[in-house]
């Protein structure tokens, strides 16, 4: 555990490889942070990839107590059941939606249609939400499809872009620069601050893609 300022504690439980069971335990810890039974002074938590950041008021709750509480919450945690939701997202894989599809496929020694087929048969899991409003880190990308970041990041990719990163996929909720490979795009609005639930995804969602427009 390490400090992120006096009022932040980062609990990193990661090992050499990503572990989905540890991740599901972190979702449980995050639920405790959102529950009314949390200690006074605990404010919020951010679930990362095999880690969690606890934010608290260090004047109200002494950091040593916050540390003890987080440690015991982790010790007692069991893998959370996820959100129980299964979501299918329509995706376009044409050249304008996925400008990096052909290059990414060729780096993987695949044809674009083969990469699309492999992406569409996968079941991804929303492991973490962050970086920008409604941005979901989705795990479940087979090791065979892992690509390093692009040598030169794109200055901007449009909202809805399906991006392929190191061991993960994600969809940009708003136009944003990205160093990941833009391989497709969806029309679904992933973030709307005026919606009852602004973020489209929840931690633990199971997600798959349906090719609406092929490469």
């Amino acid at each position, binding site marked *: 555990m390490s400090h992120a300022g006096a009022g932040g504690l980062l609990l990193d439980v990661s090992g050499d490889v990503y572990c989905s069971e540890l991740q599901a335990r972190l979702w449980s810890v995050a639920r405790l942070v959102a529950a009314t039974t949390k200690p006074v002074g605990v404010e919020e938590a951010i679930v990362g990839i095999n880690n969690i*950041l606890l934010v608290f008021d260090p004047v109200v709750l002494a950091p040593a107590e916050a540390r003890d509480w987080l440690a015991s919450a982790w010790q007692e945690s069991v893998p959370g059941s996820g959100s129980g939701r299964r979501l299918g997202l329509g995706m376009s894989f044409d050249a304008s939606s996925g400008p990096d599809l052909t290059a990414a496929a060729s780096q993987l020694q695949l044809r674009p249609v083969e990469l699309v087929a492999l992406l569409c048969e996968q079941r991804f899991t929303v492991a973490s939400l*962050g970086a*920008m409003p409604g941005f979901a880190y989705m795990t479940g990308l087979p090791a065979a499809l892992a690509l390093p970041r692009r040598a030169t990041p794109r200055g901007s990719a449009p909202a809805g872009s399906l991006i392929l990163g190191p061991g993960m996929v994600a969809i940009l909720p708003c136009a944003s620069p990205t160093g990941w490979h833009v391989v497709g795009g969806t029309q679904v609005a992933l973030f709307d601050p005026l919606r009852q639930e602004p973020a489209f995804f929840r931690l633990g969602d199971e997600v798959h893609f349906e090719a609406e427009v092929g490469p």
Partner: protein
Amino acid sequence: MIRIDSNGPLNCVVDGGRRGLMGTGISRSGPMDAYAHAISNWMVGNAGDAAALEISIFPFRITLENDAVIALTGAVGPIESSAGDVPPWWCMRMAAGDQITVSPPHAGARCYLAIAGGIDVPAVLGSRSTDLKAGFGGHEGRGLRRGDRLAAMPAADAADDQPYGTVPPQVLELLPELRRGEVKVRYLPAAEHHWFSPASLEAFNSSLYKLSTDSNRTGAKLQGHRLETSFKVELRSHGIVPGTVQVPPHGQPIVQLAEANTCGGYPKIGTVIEADRWRLGQLRPGMHLRFQEVDLQEAIEALQRQRESLVAVRRSIAIATGRPTMHE
């Protein structure tokens, strides 16, 4: 009503910020200088976290369309009104038709303008702050433009609206640093502090880092001695807070600010302590930061002292205005 008479894409409506939503990627987006923001509100009789204007593009001009009590705090520089020069950290009653011009400050980067009642914009996700990065909240999710009109919410009657000013001691301490162009902030070591080479740690603690012009409300990009880790490890994405000092592969640190990203993947050398984050909000591009490592005890004591001093400021405002009880 306040009519905005100047364009400034970074001038925006901010309140105390969005809380409890970082877990879905939503930044806090509160004021860059939370100290000056809260005090401007208290001076006009608002709660400290009411919506006010954050001004960082100058000259900034407004016309008041109604009588109103306003306060201006933060960066120190020339401010003119129809009624004459306005001293820094000042609260006064303005008449309908009065104009105010805030010229580029000679010390500091941001002014806060509070109006009695608070700026009336819709609360989005529990806050009236503008999220400039994601484009929501505040006034239409964007910076202020000439011609924008902002209403104030109904204000409690001012018991005594004689003009008055108050400058907290912390601000008096910061002013000489701002005039020298060299601001000190204290930091706590963060998760990857020990990854950095002894030479890099030495440089981080002893040399100056210049604020680059492409900084914004999300992050302060710094230029100075290149910081290198002793080994290369790909970090997994993890939660970060405002104040986090990240070091991307190019070795030049970035300090996360009011609209901090909620997740990052770069090694973190430190976190600017809570009590000093307001200082970052007064740094102008071209000015320098000096980092001083402290321990947890000092970080907490500094925060306690800062809160005690805010209580003292509120007390002095209550005495100056004859308002017996304050919000909060």
